């Protein structure tokens, strides 16, 4: 039997190429005013970016109260440093990088060993994705909506989730992630792969049972 050829690379543009940060109306003016200390401009920038920053923190930390604390820190940091924003990158790119760095710093302070990802990330065999050498489950394609995927991501072990969010959602390259997490690029690649395998497993369970496994795991 000959099957239709499947390209191995992702069908869409590379993560670094997709349009992550389209300009937001009024943002440039607000940035300039904020640099001059305009209080209204600060609140506008907060209103424009709070959801994305909070969601990023929540995905990286997996905890609402910590995510709110880090959102607060990120914006305080932003407002203190806004004078150094030169516009070389999109403002949201700059803000997200600042947020990621703050969250990682916080996690290191708490003693989370980001370097030895292999151990911290996959603590139990149960959490490790299964090898797939011959299952006959239906394909996922077309079956996963945003809410379902979000729940599955929340159910990932923390280290898998970290690399998945940074690479597949935020669009960072493996070499950037390796620098941020102080690990090798090979480690980043393999963690991402395991994260996607684990997601596939979670999403398949979700599609098959009336009591979604993803919901059960996420609720814990």
């Amino acid at each position, binding site marked *: 039997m000959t099957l239709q050829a*499947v390209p191995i690379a992702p069908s869409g543009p590379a993560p670094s190429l997709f349009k992550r940060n389209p300009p937001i109306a009024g943002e440039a003016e607000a940035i300039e005013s904020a640099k001059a200390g305009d209080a209204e401009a600060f609140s506008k920038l907060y209103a424009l970016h709070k959801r994305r920053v909070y969601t990023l923190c929540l995905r990286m930390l997996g905890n609402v109260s910590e995510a709110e604390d880090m959102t607060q820190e990120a914006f305080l940091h932003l407002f203190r440093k806004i004078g150094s924003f030169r516009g070389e990158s999109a403002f949201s790119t700059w803000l997200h990088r600042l947020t990621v760095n703050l969250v990682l710093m916080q996690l290191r302070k708490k003693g989370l060993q980001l370097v030895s990802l292999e151990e911290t990330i996959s603590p139990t065999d149960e959490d490790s994705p299964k090898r797939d050498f011959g299952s006959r489950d239906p394909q996922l394609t077309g079956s996963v909506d945003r809410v379902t995927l979000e729940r599955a991501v929340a159910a990932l072990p923390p280290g898998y989730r970290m690399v998945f969010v940074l690479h597949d*959602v935020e669009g960072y390259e493996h070499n950037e992630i390796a620098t941020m997490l102080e690990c090798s690029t090979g480690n980043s690649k393999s963690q991402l792969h395991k994260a996607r395998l684990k997601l596939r497993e979670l999403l398949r369970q979700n599609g098959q049972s009336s009591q979604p496994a993803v919901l059960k795991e996420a609720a814990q």
Partner: protein
Amino acid sequence: MTQNDQNLSAPISCADFQERLPDLFASGSNGVPDDLTLQHHLDTCENCANLVRDLQYIADQARMLLEPAEEEPSPGVWANIQSKLSAELAIPELPLTPKLQTD
């Protein structure tokens, strides 16, 4: 006999194929693996082809998560930012609630 012929004459297992996947996904090649052994396995193994399609699908779908979710930080977060900034920067009045429109 070329290198590729040799590769094709020694087909790889699913385990070997899947071992190579993390690097293949990271390589960003434009859809066609330069390794004919891998492409041959992909063309002839339904299981691995499904796996690759699902993983591509997950990576594609992940991008929709970048758009802001419905959840947002509680109002207390802005209140804290406001009071800290006012103190630090001696800004007289930050608005009580963030506004999307400036007057």
